[in-house]
Protein backbone atom coordinates (compact mmCIF):
# COMPACT_ATOMS: atom_id res chain seq x y z
CA UNK A 1 0.00 0.00 0.00
CA UNK A 2 1.18 3.50 -0.82
CA UNK A 3 2.46 5.50 2.14
CA UNK A 4 0.38 8.62 2.80
CA UNK A 5 0.88 11.22 5.50
CA UNK A 6 -2.10 10.54 7.77
CA UNK A 7 -4.37 13.52 8.45
CA UNK A 8 -4.22 15.15 11.87
CA UNK A 9 -7.03 14.57 14.37
CA UNK A 10 -5.54 16.26 17.44
CA UNK A 11 -6.56 19.67 18.71
CA UNK A 12 -5.14 21.46 21.74
CA UNK A 13 -7.54 21.69 24.68
CA UNK A 14 -11.35 21.52 24.53
CA UNK A 15 -13.19 21.40 21.19
CA UNK A 16 -15.31 24.56 20.93
CA UNK A 17 -18.94 24.66 19.82
CA UNK A 18 -17.99 27.26 17.19
CA UNK A 19 -15.49 24.78 15.72
CA UNK A 20 -18.28 22.18 15.60
CA UNK A 21 -20.73 24.65 14.04
CA UNK A 22 -18.23 25.68 11.34
CA UNK A 23 -17.62 22.05 10.55
CA UNK A 24 -21.36 21.39 10.11
CA UNK A 25 -21.82 24.61 8.14
CA UNK A 26 -19.17 23.57 5.63
CA UNK A 27 -21.47 20.68 4.57
CA UNK A 28 -24.38 22.91 3.46
CA UNK A 29 -22.88 23.00 -0.05
CA UNK A 30 -22.78 19.18 -0.23
CA UNK A 31 -26.23 18.62 -1.75
CA UNK A 32 -25.89 14.84 -1.98
CA UNK A 33 -25.90 14.55 1.84
CA UNK A 34 -29.16 13.62 3.58
CA UNK A 35 -28.01 12.88 7.10
CA UNK A 36 -25.21 13.67 9.55
CA UNK A 37 -24.41 11.74 12.70
CA UNK A 38 -22.30 13.36 15.41
CA UNK A 39 -20.86 12.02 18.64
CA UNK A 40 -19.41 14.37 21.24
CA UNK A 41 -17.45 13.12 24.23
CA UNK A 42 -17.73 15.46 27.22
CA UNK A 43 -15.50 15.40 30.34
CA UNK A 44 -17.55 14.18 33.30
CA UNK A 45 -16.96 15.47 36.85
CA UNK A 46 -16.95 11.95 38.32
CA UNK A 47 -16.89 11.49 42.09
CA UNK A 48 -14.14 9.12 43.33
CA UNK A 49 -13.88 8.55 47.08
CA UNK A 50 -15.25 11.98 47.90
CA UNK A 51 -13.07 13.79 45.35
CA UNK A 52 -14.34 15.35 42.12
CA UNK A 53 -12.68 15.15 38.71
CA UNK A 54 -12.09 18.75 37.62
CA UNK A 55 -10.39 18.07 34.26
CA UNK A 56 -8.82 15.37 32.10
CA UNK A 57 -5.34 15.82 30.66
CA UNK A 58 -4.88 13.86 27.42
CA UNK A 59 -1.61 12.58 25.99
CA UNK A 60 -1.12 10.42 22.90
CA UNK A 61 1.48 8.55 20.96
CA UNK A 62 0.61 10.85 18.10
CA UNK A 63 2.38 9.23 15.14
CA UNK A 64 0.99 5.79 15.99
CA UNK A 65 -2.49 7.17 16.72
CA UNK A 66 -2.66 8.97 13.37
CA UNK A 67 -1.52 5.90 11.44
CA UNK A 68 -4.09 3.78 13.28
CA UNK A 69 -6.84 6.35 12.71
CA UNK A 70 -6.07 6.32 8.98
CA UNK A 71 -6.40 2.50 8.96
CA UNK A 72 -9.72 2.72 10.83
CA UNK A 73 -10.97 5.35 8.34
CA UNK A 74 -10.05 3.06 5.45
CA UNK A 75 -12.00 0.20 7.08
CA UNK A 76 -15.04 2.39 7.71
CA UNK A 77 -15.13 3.84 4.20
CA UNK A 78 -14.87 0.28 2.84
CA UNK A 79 -17.80 -0.83 4.97
CA UNK A 80 -20.26 2.09 4.84
CA UNK A 81 -21.40 4.35 2.00
CA UNK A 82 -20.26 7.67 3.44
CA UNK A 83 -19.74 11.01 1.79
CA UNK A 84 -17.26 12.05 4.49
CA UNK A 85 -16.06 11.53 8.06
CA UNK A 86 -14.28 13.95 10.40
CA UNK A 87 -12.62 13.05 13.69
CA UNK A 88 -11.11 15.37 16.31
CA UNK A 89 -9.64 14.45 19.70
CA UNK A 90 -8.30 16.79 22.36
CA UNK A 91 -4.75 16.75 23.69
CA UNK A 92 -3.77 18.54 26.89
CA UNK A 93 -6.21 19.70 29.54
CA UNK A 94 -9.99 19.71 29.08
CA UNK A 95 -12.06 20.99 32.02
CA UNK A 96 -15.19 19.14 33.19
CA UNK A 97 -18.04 20.01 30.81
CA UNK A 98 -15.65 20.51 27.87
CA UNK A 99 -15.81 18.50 24.63
CA UNK A 100 -12.82 16.14 24.15
CA UNK A 101 -13.98 14.03 21.17
CA UNK A 102 -15.90 15.02 18.02
CA UNK A 103 -16.84 12.33 15.49
CA UNK A 104 -18.86 13.49 12.48
CA UNK A 105 -20.09 11.28 9.61
CA UNK A 106 -22.34 12.08 6.64
CA UNK A 107 -24.17 10.03 4.02
CA UNK A 108 -26.95 10.31 1.42
CA UNK A 109 -29.33 8.25 3.58
CA UNK A 110 -29.23 8.19 7.36
CA UNK A 111 -28.23 4.58 8.20
CA UNK A 112 -24.59 4.55 7.03
CA UNK A 113 -23.81 7.83 8.83
CA UNK A 114 -25.41 6.60 12.09
CA UNK A 115 -23.76 3.18 12.06
CA UNK A 116 -20.34 4.43 10.98
CA UNK A 117 -20.32 7.14 13.66
CA UNK A 118 -21.08 4.65 16.41
CA UNK A 119 -18.44 2.19 15.14
CA UNK A 120 -15.83 4.95 14.86
CA UNK A 121 -16.41 5.96 18.49
CA UNK A 122 -15.95 2.37 19.70
CA UNK A 123 -12.79 1.87 17.68
CA UNK A 124 -11.29 5.24 18.68
CA UNK A 125 -11.74 4.40 22.37
CA UNK A 126 -10.41 0.87 22.01
CA UNK A 127 -7.62 1.25 19.47
CA UNK A 128 -6.03 4.71 19.57
CA UNK A 129 -2.97 5.10 21.83
CA UNK A 130 -4.39 8.01 23.82
CA UNK A 131 -4.44 8.33 27.60
CA UNK A 132 -6.58 10.40 29.93
CA UNK A 133 -5.30 11.54 33.33
CA UNK A 134 -8.23 12.51 35.56
CA UNK A 135 -7.22 15.51 37.65
CA UNK A 136 -8.94 16.09 40.98
CA UNK A 137 -9.59 19.46 42.54
CA UNK A 138 -6.85 18.86 45.19
CA UNK A 139 -4.15 18.32 42.49
CA UNK A 140 -4.11 14.52 42.94
CA UNK A 141 -5.00 12.38 39.91
CA UNK A 142 -5.92 8.94 38.64
CA UNK A 143 -5.55 7.40 35.20
CA UNK A 144 -8.80 7.06 33.25
CA UNK A 145 -9.95 3.56 32.29
CA UNK A 146 -12.17 2.85 29.29
CA UNK A 147 -14.83 0.18 29.62
Amino acid at each position, binding site marked *: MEKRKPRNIFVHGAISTSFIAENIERHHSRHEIGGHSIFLGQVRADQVEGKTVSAIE*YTAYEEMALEKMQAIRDDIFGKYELTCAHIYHSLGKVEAGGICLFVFTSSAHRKPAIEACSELVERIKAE*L*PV*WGKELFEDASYQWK*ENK
Partner: protein
Amino acid sequence: MSNPEISIMVFGQLTDITGTSSLQVPLQADSDSMKAELQKRYPALVYARYIMAVDRKPVTGNVSLSGQSTIALLPPFSGG
Protein backbone atom coordinates in the same frame (compact mmCIF):
# COMPACT_ATOMS: atom_id res chain seq x y z
CA MET B 1 31.87 -3.94 24.02
CA SER B 2 28.69 -2.73 25.69
CA ASN B 3 25.44 -2.32 23.77
CA PRO B 4 24.62 1.15 22.36
CA GLU B 5 21.81 2.96 24.16
CA ILE B 6 18.37 3.33 22.61
CA SER B 7 15.44 5.58 23.59
CA ILE B 8 12.16 4.07 24.67
CA MET B 9 8.99 6.17 24.81
CA VAL B 10 6.80 5.64 27.87
CA PHE B 11 3.13 6.68 28.03
CA GLY B 12 0.25 7.09 30.47
CA GLN B 13 0.36 5.44 33.90
CA LEU B 14 3.66 3.71 33.06
CA THR B 15 5.37 7.09 33.55
CA ASP B 16 4.39 6.77 37.24
CA ILE B 17 6.70 3.73 37.31
CA THR B 18 9.55 5.04 35.17
CA GLY B 19 9.36 8.64 36.36
CA THR B 20 9.99 9.80 32.78
CA SER B 21 8.45 9.58 29.32
CA SER B 22 11.77 8.76 27.64
CA LEU B 23 14.12 6.00 28.86
CA GLN B 24 17.69 5.42 27.69
CA VAL B 25 18.56 1.70 27.91
CA PRO B 26 21.13 -0.58 26.22
CA LEU B 27 19.79 -2.01 22.95
CA GLN B 28 18.74 -5.67 23.19
CA ALA B 29 18.53 -8.22 20.38
CA ASP B 30 14.76 -8.65 20.53
CA SER B 31 11.62 -7.44 22.24
CA ASP B 32 11.52 -10.26 24.80
CA SER B 33 15.05 -9.48 26.02
CA MET B 34 14.15 -5.78 26.08
CA LYS B 35 11.12 -6.49 28.28
CA ALA B 36 13.34 -8.52 30.63
CA GLU B 37 15.91 -5.71 30.76
CA LEU B 38 13.20 -3.15 31.53
CA GLN B 39 11.69 -5.30 34.27
CA LYS B 40 15.12 -5.65 35.89
CA ARG B 41 15.39 -1.85 36.00
CA TYR B 42 11.73 -1.20 36.92
CA PRO B 43 10.44 -4.23 38.89
CA ALA B 44 6.92 -2.68 39.11
CA LEU B 45 6.56 -3.27 35.34
CA VAL B 46 6.09 -6.99 36.12
CA TYR B 47 2.68 -6.16 37.56
CA ALA B 48 1.75 -3.45 35.04
CA ARG B 49 -0.56 -4.06 32.08
CA TYR B 50 1.12 -2.80 28.95
CA ILE B 51 2.14 -3.69 25.40
CA MET B 52 5.35 -2.84 23.60
CA ALA B 53 5.11 -1.18 20.19
CA VAL B 54 7.99 -1.41 17.72
CA ASP B 55 7.84 0.98 14.77
CA ARG B 56 4.32 1.96 15.81
CA LYS B 57 2.97 -1.62 15.64
CA PRO B 58 1.96 -3.55 18.77
CA VAL B 59 4.34 -6.45 19.32
CA THR B 60 2.76 -9.89 19.31
CA GLY B 61 5.27 -12.66 19.95
CA ASN B 62 8.93 -11.72 19.82
CA VAL B 63 10.46 -9.34 17.24
CA SER B 64 14.08 -8.43 16.66
CA LEU B 65 15.30 -4.91 17.42
CA SER B 66 17.90 -2.66 15.82
CA GLY B 67 19.32 0.76 16.60
CA GLN B 68 16.74 2.12 14.11
CA SER B 69 13.76 0.60 15.96
CA THR B 70 11.21 2.98 17.45
CA ILE B 71 10.17 1.43 20.75
CA ALA B 72 7.28 2.47 23.00
CA LEU B 73 5.55 1.13 26.10
CA LEU B 74 1.77 1.53 26.02
CA PRO B 75 -0.60 0.98 28.95
CA PRO B 76 -4.34 0.33 28.23
CA PHE B 77 -5.75 3.11 26.03
CA SER B 78 -8.21 5.56 27.57
CA GLY B 79 -8.98 8.17 24.93
CA GLY B 80 -12.36 9.72 24.24
